[in-house]
């Protein structure tokens, strides 16, 4: 995404890269988005009806491992960003793909977890607790999936003779998004899982 930097031509002090400002504004907005979902969950965390409760169904060891996987993907992401800063495109691609891979592992974990829960009798229609849990974690998973697509697209585009200054910015923006999805999970892991068992 080549965006013309108008400010260069206008010749006045650049207040930062336009796309980075836009990304931070978007992430500020996303705080409210996930805040609403998490609050819905908190409102219903005990409204389990006849269905299983959080204590009965959550497997903390399993979720801890997938949380760890997502945390480590933030490390690989920041290393990709660092490599892009040094214009080491080969390393950058390796770390980008590693990040995407860890994201896919996390998503597989989520798919496994959902399947297990459905087998144990918790679905979106079981109770408001089930609705809130599945919708919150699915929206987070959807964000991870979009992040994986963006990582793969960035890697792919770096092959297309598009290795220029903008490349580092692409990686930085994808990185900001990815880390944000990670910090949302840091909150979800604590509030939705650890505090409920």
């Amino acid at each position, binding site marked *: 995404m080549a965006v013309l930097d108008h400010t260069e031509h206008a010749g006045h002090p650049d207040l930062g890269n336009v796309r980075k400002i836009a990304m931070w504004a978007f992430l500020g907005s996303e*705080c409210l988005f996930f805040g609403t979902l998490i609050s819905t969950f908190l*409102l219903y965390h005990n409204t389990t009806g006849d269905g299983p409760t959080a204590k009965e169904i959550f497997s903390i060891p399993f979720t801890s491992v997938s949380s760890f996987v997502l945390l*480590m993907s933030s490390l690989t992401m920041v290393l990709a960003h660092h490599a892009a800063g040094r214009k080491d495109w080969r390393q950058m691609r390796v770390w980008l793909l590693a990040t995407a891979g860890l994201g896919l592992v996390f998503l597989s974990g989520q798919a496994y977890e959902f399947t297990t829960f459905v087998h144990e009798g918790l679905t979106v229609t079981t109770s408001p607790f089930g609705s809130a849990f599945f919708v919150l974690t699915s929206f987070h998973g959807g964000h991870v999936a979009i992040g994986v697509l963006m990582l793969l697209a960035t890697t792919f585009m770096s092959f297309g003779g598009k290795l220029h200054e903008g490349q580092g910015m692409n990686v930085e923006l994808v990185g900001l998004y990815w880390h944000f999805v990670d*910090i949302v999970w840091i909150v979800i892991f604590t*509030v939705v899982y650890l505090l409920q068992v």
Partner: protein
Amino acid sequence: MSEAIDRPHPTPRDYILIAVILFAITAAEVAVTYVDALDSARAPMLIVMSAAKFLLVVGWYMHLRFDRPAYRNLFLIGLVLTPVLFGAVLLSFGLLIGN
């Protein structure tokens, strides 16, 4: 260019060190949930540890510590508004107090 971005950026060593800290905190979080003796202190401990992880990722991995204040402010409005608004909503439902 403002001086904010001239501050030395972290190196891969720093990033790995932070990852180790993040891992350690996560391990401590999980451990706390298994210690029955900590029952009443558990929630505040978990919230503090989770906030620490949050700040580490935002500050270092997202470079907010080193970047222009404009970015921080945009993000901070959302970050502060969320708990304030939904704290009020949950309070009005009688949550967060008494249980």
